[in-house]
């Protein structure tokens, strides 16, 4: 008999938002968060604009355990669930070493897209991906950027709102499933015609793997990356034929920077943001998408009337 010896985290994600009006107000918010974390002896991870980063460094130096996280990688932009996956990976590793971590993330207008829906998806995905981690996450949004979508991102996804320096319970907060049901993950911009298209059944997954491996060789992905990508696409393709209705379709593009793959099927997800949390060791389900997400630079899942769609991007 196996006895699990893992220790449950004593606390979970604390996710709150604050609205700032101008740079001095933003600076005050960030510095106060860093100071509070330093007082608690917690390391602080930051994604903030350069002016703020300089000021924080000048004020605290390295003493406060400051870590500046990079902005989302180019391939992940536009996919809140992918950015949440990458954030969770970094913060999980950090929290595993240090215990509770404070994380401050500033709104970046270049990621808004056409309507700012990215932020609704990102913060909902964060609530799933970081749920079991001892992270205190503070999201900072500028008052001038409050498009309706960003306003929803703030009100629906943050259990607490910081007002006058104090975290207050947010009565509009919704569970992530309800957020995604009301504001589904947006589709990514359409690509041109695929260079290869394959319709497949559960008995033809080997043909999907062979096609992906072939394109991976053509774009010179290194051997390990190519193998990992084949695993990732196979998992998504398996889900498509296992839970979808009828055949599924895979599309492949050899891009300048790597390989892009889409898998489409006519089924609909019961779980709107699958694979964002590591599965329980004894749980036979949900592991495939989790692992696939860990292996790709982008893995974006969206639903529409036609079914479920997944785009994967692997950079050379």
């Amino acid at each position, binding site marked *: 008999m196996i006895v699990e010896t893992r220790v449950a985290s004593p606390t979970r994600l604390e996710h709150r938002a604050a609205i700032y009006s101008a740079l001095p107000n933003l600076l005050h918010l960030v510095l106060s968060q860093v100071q509070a974390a330093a007082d608690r002896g917690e390391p602080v991870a930051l994604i903030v604009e350069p002016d703020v980063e300089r000021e924080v460094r000048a004020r605290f130096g390295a003493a406060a355990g400051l870590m500046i996280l990079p902005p989302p990688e180019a391939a992940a932009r536009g996919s809140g669930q992918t950015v949440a996956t990458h954030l969770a990976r970094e913060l999980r590793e950090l929290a595993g070493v240090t215990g509770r971590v404070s994380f401050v993330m500033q709104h970046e207008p270049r990621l808004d897209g056409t309507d700012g829906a990215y932020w609704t998806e990102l913060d909902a995905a964060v609530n799933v991906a970081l749920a079991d981690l001892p992270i205190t996450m503070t999201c900072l949004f500028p008052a001038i950027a409050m498009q309706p979508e960003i306003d929803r991102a703030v009100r629906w996804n943050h259990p607490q709102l910081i007002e006058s320096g104090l975290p207050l319970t947010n009565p509009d907060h919704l569970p992530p499933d309800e957020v995604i049901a009301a504001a589904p993950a947006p589709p990514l911009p359409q690509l041109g015609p695929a260079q290869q298209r394959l319709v497949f059944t559960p008995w033809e997954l080997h043909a999907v793997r062979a096609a992906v491996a072939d394109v991976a060789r053509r774009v010179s992905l290194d051997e390990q990356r190519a193998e990992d990508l084949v695993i990732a696409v*196979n998992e998504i393709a398996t889900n498509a034929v296992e839970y979808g209705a009828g055949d599924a379709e895979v599309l492949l593009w050899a891009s300048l920077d790597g390989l892009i793959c889409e898998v489409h099927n006519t089924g609909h997800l019961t779980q709107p943001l699958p694979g964002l949390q590591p599965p329980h060791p004894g749980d036979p389900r949900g592991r495939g998408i989790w*692992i696939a997400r860990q292996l790709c630079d982008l893995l974006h899942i969206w639903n529409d009337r036609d079914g479920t769609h997944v785009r994967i991007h692997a950079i050379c």
Partner: protein
Amino acid sequence: MLTRVTPGDHACAAFDSDQQLAEIASDFVADGLVRQEKVCFLDDEGAADAMLRRLSEDLGDVPSYLASGQLAIVPQEATRASFEGPAEELLDVISESITAALDQGLAGFRLTGQLTWAAQRSAGVSLADYDLALDRIWADCPVSVLCPYDTRRLPPGEIEQLRGLHRIELVAPAIFDDGLLRITQSSRFVLRLAGEVDHSNRSTVLGVVESTLDNALRSTERSDEVRLNLTSLRFLDVAAAHQLVQAAEAFPVSHRLVLAGVRPLLQRLLDRCGAAFAPQLVIQGSARP
């Protein structure tokens, strides 16, 4: 029926999957190379690639055998051209090759290949005539020939006729073979998996592992492990990897599930599926890339 061909034998083998052809041809070729014989493989439809891959997994340094000329692959075009000409031409070439190999000090000569195209030709000398002629030319030489016949593509009557021309039929029994994955039993508690495990066949793999464990537990041989040789396993999906880990966790503490010849790809996948937390699971890496 035999499982090995020895010098002087002219054997046939019926196969019904590419994995099976790779297995029987590779075994035949490996035996010849180890015996210091010249080995010639008539390639067609990419069969040589599959055979060489399997040979590399089993024997290692295949490029050195190719470089020295002890192992020769006849390309598809040359294979087909040789069956389009008069039988005497092909037999002359084979005779010269046998003589040259023996002159070089090699211990014998072996010939096999993918013969499906040759068997399906509508015109020209029949394979049966080649078989009869071959028996005449090597009467006193240390020559072995293995003629594999594809049961998926050749009519049963034709295979029966060809079988009748061979004194020996090589058999390679499998527990399971769906064309994607082939499971053979090396010994009572040792299985070899060759090919790929995915959604289409993973339940079978787990069933075979469980029944083999069941046999090990009931056995009076007191075997304390079930060994899966994964040297030729090229793909395993996440659910199958997880099922193997879970299967090991379900083993009694007295028994081990040993996964041998595990490639780095599979090792990484098993790690992600919690292999480190299953004390009854032993993973042995592949010695060859």
